[in-house]
């Protein structure tokens, strides 16, 4: 369970998160939508402790992420995250990309790590690309590799930050399919996305961020069907 309480966060003068409350239960898929700069990415990076927060608290399985005593490297093993871009380690093959963390962080043997990696890469449809370098992959394949890499750590939670927005329209589908598959397998996920169709279809709840505030949160039918705030109405109209 991820429990976010009254989280505030500023970059210098700019307050990016203005008191966010959100609880994500195990097995739940929460999608976050919202305009550019509304703080969506920032929230995700706060959840796995890549960015410190100013006040409030974030607990993952009851453990406070921003407590000094928390071993963040340990905690991050169970929170996978995939970003919009530059996810791949370009100097490593696909297989090495996926085995690196299990070997160095979980201290697995090479054989063991490779077994898991191959399984996850097959899972996302990259079983044929093991010894290719990411530079030779399409953007969609790179993103799926990044997902496999995160999955290889056997995370309990997955965070996705607009994983399709840097992709050509043709490639979006294959990555979203991978996410759908994960959702259907019961993975707990928070997905930031611009793909409304996807959000509608896959989420248990959709959250709408506006200027650092979570303006609305509701099951998709409700949120898309009957947007309450003027901002959300406007936002939905713009993205038709």
């Amino acid at each position: 369970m991820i429990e976010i309480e009254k989280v505030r966060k500023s970059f210098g003068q700019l307050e990016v998160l203005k008191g966010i409350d959100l609880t994500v239960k195990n097995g739940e898929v929460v999608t976050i939508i919202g305009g550019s700069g509304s703080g969506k990415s920032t929230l995700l990076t706060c959840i796995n402790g890549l960015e410190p927060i100013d006040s409030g608290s974030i607990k993952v399985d009851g453990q406070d992420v921003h407590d000094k005593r928390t071993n963040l490297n340990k905690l991050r093993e169970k929170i996978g995250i995939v970003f919009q871009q530059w996810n791949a380690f370009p100097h490593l093959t696909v297989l090495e990309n996926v085995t690196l963390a299990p070997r160095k962080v979980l201290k697995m043997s090479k054989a063991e790590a490779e077994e898991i990696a191959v399984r996850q890469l097959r899972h996302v449809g990259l079983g044929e690309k093991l010894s290719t370098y990411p530079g030779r992959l399409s953007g969609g394949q790179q993103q799926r590799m990044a997902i496999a890499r995160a999955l290889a750590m056997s995370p309990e939670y997955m965070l996705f930050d607009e994983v399709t927005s840097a992709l050509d329209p043709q490639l979006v589908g294959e990555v979203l399919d991978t996410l759908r598959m994960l959702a259907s397998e019961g993975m707990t996920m928070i997905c930031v996305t611009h793909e409304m169709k996807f959000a509608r279809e896959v989420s248990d709840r959709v959250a709408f961020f506006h200027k650092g505030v979570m303006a609305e949160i509701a099951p998709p039918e409700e949120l898309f069907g009957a947007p309450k705030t003027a901002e959300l109405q406007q936002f939905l109209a713009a993205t038709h």
Partner: protein
Amino acid sequence: MFNTSLGIDDLIFLAQGAGMTILVTAIAVAIGTVLGIAFGIFRYQAGPVLAAPVTFVLDLFRSIPLLIQLVLANAFIGTVLRLKMSGFTVACAVLSLYTAAYCAEIVRGGIQAVPSNTRRAARSLGMSWFQDMTHIVLPLATRIALPSWIGLALGVMKDSALVYVVQVTELLKSTQILITRLQEPLFLLLICGAFYFIISFPIARFGGYLEKRWSND
């Protein structure tokens, strides 16, 4: 020019000079690179304020003619501190720091060019700062920085022509010595220039090739 009195011994003498050029360069580049990586990481990690003293000192090495650096170091070590240090040692020490000053910039630039998301991806997988540095950042920064580093190494080789001021007889100095005796300046200078060119040009081309190849993927 074609009936030269340049003998086989003289060629050996030139080769010794060339050997000295390469030796001084190799030592300076080796030590300078290690120091440069350390300074570069420090400058990147410590932030501008903490790193200011290091930044300042390294900047000195890039803002004062190498000739003066050599003369000053020589005078300071020998005249002021009265340490007996060979010209070779002084030359290597100064050139190493000179190399380090440039190398630190290259390293810092290389690290900065690693996309922050790639580093975040590594940290998100539970890797420690050190693991991130050794497995992700340095390998990637190396690819970005290698062409410039090759340029630097060649630059140091060319600049090592100045170590004659601390009584080290490298290639250009050997050439001048032979000119004194044989009085065939043009011919000898062309040999000397050709030597630098033959070493530098292919390596520089190789650097350009790497740059092109790596910037494409």
